[in-house]
């Protein structure tokens, strides 16, 4: 066989073989991977909206999705805002649970971050950061207490304590939360969050 022809044939057939092999593997793992992703989101929603039994995606765009957490009756008991933005080093992705009027927060979960371990990474830490997000007043903008207050009682209802030594990460989270809350509020007003209209599942 001529060399060039052999080159073409060999490569093409290796390509074909690999393609079919991968198709099989891809097929076998596809579901599981999708499931993993979905489960991650779902678990987060359940975490930030206690009492959730089932979930529903209400809105989606780049860097912002809103889910509804439903109770056994299927009524939406809170929103879970999935948003991301730039932190100290890299993107921070978080999930914030609120009540349906978007006036009180439920809980905050950090899904993905690459902040400095032991410093910015404390935003994933309940003790030093996440606890302050429970049950805050979010009818207006939430603000940061700097320097940090000694105890949670000292904080105003709409205040969050900074992490000492990681103001930037704290501010970044705050920024993401405030802007996505704002956005969501607008969506709600415009009626784009109607649970019936966009039933994904």
């Amino acid at each position, binding site marked *: 066989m001529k060399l060039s022809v052999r080159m073409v044939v060999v490569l093409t057939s290796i390509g074909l073989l690999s393609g079919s092999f991968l198709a099989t593997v891809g097929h076998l793992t596809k579901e599981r991977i999708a499931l993993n992703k979905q489960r991650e989101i779902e678990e987060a929603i359940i975490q930030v909206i206690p009492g959730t039994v089932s979930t529903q995606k209400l809105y989606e765009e780049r860097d912002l999705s809103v889910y509804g957490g439903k109770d056994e009756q299927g009524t939406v008991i809170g929103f879970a805002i999935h948003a991301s933005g730039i932190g100290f080093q890299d993107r921070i992705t978080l999930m914030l649970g609120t009540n349906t009027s978007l006036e009180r927060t439920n809980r905050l979960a950090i899904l993905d971050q690459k902040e400095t371990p*032991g*410093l910015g990474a404390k935003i994933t830490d309940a003790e030093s950061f996440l606890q302050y997000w429970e049950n805050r007043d979010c009818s207006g903008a939430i603000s940061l207490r700097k*320097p*940090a207050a000694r105890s949670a009682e000292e904080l105003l209802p709409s205040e969050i304590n900074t992490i*000492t*030594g990681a103001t930037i990460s704290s501010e970044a989270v705050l920024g993401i939360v405030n802007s996505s809350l704002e956005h969501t509020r607008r969506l709600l007003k415009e009626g784009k969050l109607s649970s019936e209209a966009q039933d994904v599942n």
Partner: protein
Amino acid sequence: MTNNAFILQSSPHFKDKDSVPKIMYAVIASLVPAVAASLYFFRFRALVLLVSCVATCLVTEALFLWLRRKPLHSLFDGSAVITGLLLAMTLPPSLSVELAIIGAVMAIAIGKQVFGGLGYNIFNPALVGRAFLQTAFPVAMTTWIPPATLKIQTATFATPLGNLRFEDAIARGTLTPLKDLFTGNVGGCLGETSSFALILGGLYLLSRRVIDWRIPLGILLSLTAFTGAFWLANPEKYASPLFHILAGGLLIGAFFMATDMVTSPITPLGTWIYALGIGIVIGLIRLFGGFAEGVMYSILFMNAFVPLLNRYTRPRILGEGRKA
């Protein structure tokens, strides 16, 4: 005409009396006011940190000299003492001694000796040590205590720059007064607080021609221009150039650290670019970066360019480029 042992050497046979140890000891002498100020403001903490850093630097240096089978007289050239002193001067007074010792070991080991010791290092050793500590122990390195003269008790205390950057000091009207910055009655690293003491030492070095005047001047000029432009545009948001010059590590950096001969360019043009570059990077970091202070990073960053600067700014030789 008795002896038969004349000296054999190449010309010249006259030499200036200045020497490396003399230069180094002049720098140490120029640091005396700043050291005194640090002892005054931070008392025992300052003493402990200064002593442990200098001692650790000397021990580490001696260890490496021994390992490399180099003459031990280099230990007394004063450079390791300076590294120790300057490292200590740039540490927060509350830092524990163990961490200071780690920093000092790193300063000499990976900042200086791995490159071949005095004269060969690319980066400023004291700042390598400090950068190591800052990255290894960011919390300890940004925990500040008030100077002993303030007689207040607080758990957290911000430096003037931290105050400016993270606590909206201008808006809240709590910007540190320039007078305090000048005398040093503020929080901060051991040796950076008293601008007065630093200027004194810097002027001494300039007058003895130990340091290249272009470096402090270039840094001050470019920082003034950079911060000045923003300040003029929006004084509600940005602090004045004078504040930026007196606050933080700028003066100690401009007079004592950027001027380290080993890690700064040898050509005049290169020196200008280096100095202006440092000022601008400081401005960038202070105004827009994640840190309140950028002196250390900007000096290290520009250190990295020094070999390139030296190479591409070679002065024109007398008669070069003229047609023969």
